């Protein structure tokens, strides 16, 4: 029996238990004399019965399923050993052809020896499958029978049911924690190995990132330089350019939309800005690399500046455009949170709209705006595709936006997909950079959220 069929059977049985339990209780209710004692609807007994039939059985099925393959493999190994068939050293590999033989032609194409193993494999598989089905089904049936005996009209079925559901809800909410733990562990584990090879201080404060020396043991001076400062500076430079573009544009757009624009303009402009936010970053990357970067280069050349073809400016500019909607929607939120009476007070004293905005609204909303900018910064720092496609790989320690710089995310991608040597410090460095990235954005977010929350409370 396949797993899907088994699950299907379980579902049917659960439905059956539902009706049984409901029936039993409804009948009991009909017979009771004191109708006032009826507290729980019969269907809740049904729900509990259905859950009893399903949940333990599914958990059991999961574990048995996990154990199935090792068990079959050990059985087939002992069979192969007994019958002295010369098998490949790796069992999975040996069985691959057998397992993928799903049509009669493919079975016929197997070697005679494998045909024998094929037969045996299928025998074992069928028996195991049957055993699993029997265990799971009987567990389900047993629990339901026991449960059916125990329930009576006094059982607080609804409360039991609601407790179970609440437990499931809590479990769902805790997945966020598991994800964070997963992230921390996966980057931390490899990072500690990295910091075992490269001292943490030289990673954090070294000013030379020169993986060009570290590809091969026999290549130039294998003393790899893993000073991440140029990467941090590069990341900061590009993010700074992006913020320089997005903060004024985003903020002004938000101000215009919320304070000046008529409903028609708003109806058009808002969705358009949202489209800007919805365009995938790989598209921005393609555009930055093929259209914007050459354009900026030509522009620079025409006024006599030398611009690198992978200038930080191009990547930063496009990234800035990308986060305009982000900044504008955050600013929109904070501006609209400023109490209306501040606005009216200022206008009533004869200030123009712009004076009200500049002298009253913005100062009042400043903490919120700062929080928004910090969130935008953490966005820019973590952005990957635009810089992978449009920024350079040379770790120049410079703040000149016309030169090529590299970023943390670009290095993670190249370190993990380039032609590097396995298990070298280079692969591990990607995880250390990932850790840095995670920690940096974490700190920025915590500060930003704190600021925004404080600000909101101020007016509540």
């Amino acid at each position, binding site marked *: 029996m396949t797993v899907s069929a088994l699950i299907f059977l379980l579902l049917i049985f659960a439905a059956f238990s539902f009706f049984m339990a409901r029936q039993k209780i409804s009948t009991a209710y009909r017979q009771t004399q004191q109708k006032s004692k009826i507290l729980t609807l019969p269907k809740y007994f049904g729900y509990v019965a259905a859950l009893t039939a399903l949940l333990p059985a599914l958990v059991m099925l999961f574990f048995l399923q996990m154990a199935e393959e090792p068990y079959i493999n050990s059985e087939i190994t002992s069979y192969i050993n007994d019958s002295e068939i010369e098998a490949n050293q790796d069992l999975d590999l040996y069985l691959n052809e057998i397992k993928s033989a799903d049509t009669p032609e493919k079975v016929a194409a197997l070697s005679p020896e494998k045909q024998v193993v094929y037969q045996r494999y299928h025998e074992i598989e069928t028996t195991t499958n049957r055993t699993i089905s029997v265990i799971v089904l009987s567990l389900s049936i047993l629990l339901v029978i026991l449960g059916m005996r125990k329930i009576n009209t006094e059982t607080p079925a609804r409360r039991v049911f*609601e407790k179970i*559901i609440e437990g499931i*809800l*809590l*479990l*769902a*909410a805790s*997945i*966020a*924690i598991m*994800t*964070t733990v*997963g*992230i921390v562990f*996966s*980057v931390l*584990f490899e990072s500690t190995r990295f910091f075992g090879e490269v001292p943490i201080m030289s990673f954090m404060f070294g000013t030379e990132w020169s993986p060009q020396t570290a590809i091969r043991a026999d290549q130039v001076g294998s003393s790899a330089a893993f000073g991440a400062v140029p990467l941090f500076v590069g990341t900061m430079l590009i993010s700074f350019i992006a913020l320089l573009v997005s903060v004024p*544009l985003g903020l*002004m757009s938000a*101000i*215009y*939309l919320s304070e*000046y624009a008529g409903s028609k303009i708003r109806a058009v402009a808002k969705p*358009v*800005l*949202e*489209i*800007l936010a*919805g*365009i*995938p*970053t*790989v598209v921005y*990357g*393609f*555009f930055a690399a093929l259209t914007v970067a050459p354009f900026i280069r030509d522009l620079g050349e025409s006024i006599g500046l030398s611009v690198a073809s992978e200038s930080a400016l191009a990547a930063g500019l496009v990234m800035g*455009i990308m986060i305009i*909607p982000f900044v504008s929607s955050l600013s929109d939120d904070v501006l609209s949170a400023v109490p209306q009476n501040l606005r009216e007070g200022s206008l009533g004293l004869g200030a*123009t709209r*712009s*004076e009200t*905005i*500049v002298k009253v609204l913005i100062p009042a909303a400043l903490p919120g705006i700062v929080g928004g900018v910090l*969130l935008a910064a*953490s966005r820019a720092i*973590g*952005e*990957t*595709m635009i810089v992978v496609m449009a920024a350079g790989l040379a770790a120049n320690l410079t703040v000149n936006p016309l030169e090529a710089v590299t970023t943390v*995310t670009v290095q*993670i*991608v190249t370190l*993990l*997909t380039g032609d590097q040597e396995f298990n070298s410090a280079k692969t591990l460095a*990607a*995880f250390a950079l990932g850790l840095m*990235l995670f920690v940096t954005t*974490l700190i920025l*977010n915590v500060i930003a*959220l704190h600021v925004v929350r404080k600000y909101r409370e101020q007016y509540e």
Partner: protein
Amino acid sequence: MNNTDLVRKSLKKRYLKERIFKTVGLLSIVSAILFLLILLTDIFTKAMPAFSQTNISLEVTLDPDVIGVGENPSEQDLMAADFRRVIRNSLADQFPGVTKRKEKRELYSLTSMGAEFQLRDMVIADPALLGQTIQVEFMADDDVDAVIKGAIDRNLPESDRRVKDQKLGWIETLEESGQISEQFNWWFFTSGDSREPEMAGIKGAIKGSLFTLLVTLALSFPVAVAAAIYLEEFAPKNRFIDFIEININNLAAVPSIVFGLLGLAVFINFFSLPRSAPLVGGIVLSLMTLPTIIIASRSAIKAVPPSLREAALGLGASKMQTVFHHVLPAALPGILTGTIIGMAQALGETAPLLMIGMVAFIVDIPQGITDPSTVLPIQVYLWADSPERGFLAKTSAAIMVLLFFLIAMNAIAIYLRKKFEKKW
């Protein structure tokens, strides 16, 4: 001079400032919109050539002897048969006098590498064609395509042109005899990836994206809604719940590439799930979109007025009944909108998938969530990387397909919001 005069005098300046301020605001919106337009036009113009395909109509004689099959060949015989020769003979007939090896190769490269498979599939579908002479529209090579569409300028001096004079002559001869035609490129939507630009299609990536999104939706939606309900309605005020909330807010802002590292370390290296599979991609993306959907769902639940809850509770409903029978239905439009936006975000995401082996050349259309596959944004990334120039248009066309899906999803979200939005 009294105060009124002072104010009056400065008025002009203040109004000017006001106007400037307002204009700056308008300009910033206009510039954002302008940028969007430039981007879309740029992609659109680059993509146009990819939507039509140049065909060369040739008369081929399906002589079983030339093809190398006997009487009543089986499908397997036909699979292995040499249909290339038929096409080559036809070309050689049309342009006699081509004798040098190198020239012959140039001549044979007029039709696509896929032409022989095109012919083969025709014969397999209808074996009665064997022995007949038929007129077939073959896919043209990407160079021919480029000449016809003007991507290669015919007026350039020969040394600067990729298609040399001789080949250009052949193409022009074919053109004059009306053997060259253009038609809508259905192939692009019905086939998988290929290394030949003219044969490359987007269907594999679309299906890969679909499977990935299915996994993402199946995992993230129930979990996110459950989490949102718990946090909004049931969670007690304690440190553990605070911790969960902080976690969710932070995960929402963790760079997507970090989720890729998680997927690589946990799902591929630790659980040894298959590389390049929508299953793993979907799990990673669902972890990534989870916070988005949770936050959206929470605000939708929060927006349901307390009076609704109080009314239900007052009538004797339990907390659970109140939530599931009254609060959740009322919050559902908001939750769905948030989910669709989260899905759109997942559809456009590239970086985490780079880490889990989805950057791969996959021709076969994936049939399930464990089959190797790519997704639309990765296909864009891959094609942007290919040496053949024909892929530039394909890349832009793939972007347009991707944008089409995104816009459609967002439109559905907006529609839902408009239709079911309730102001309490």
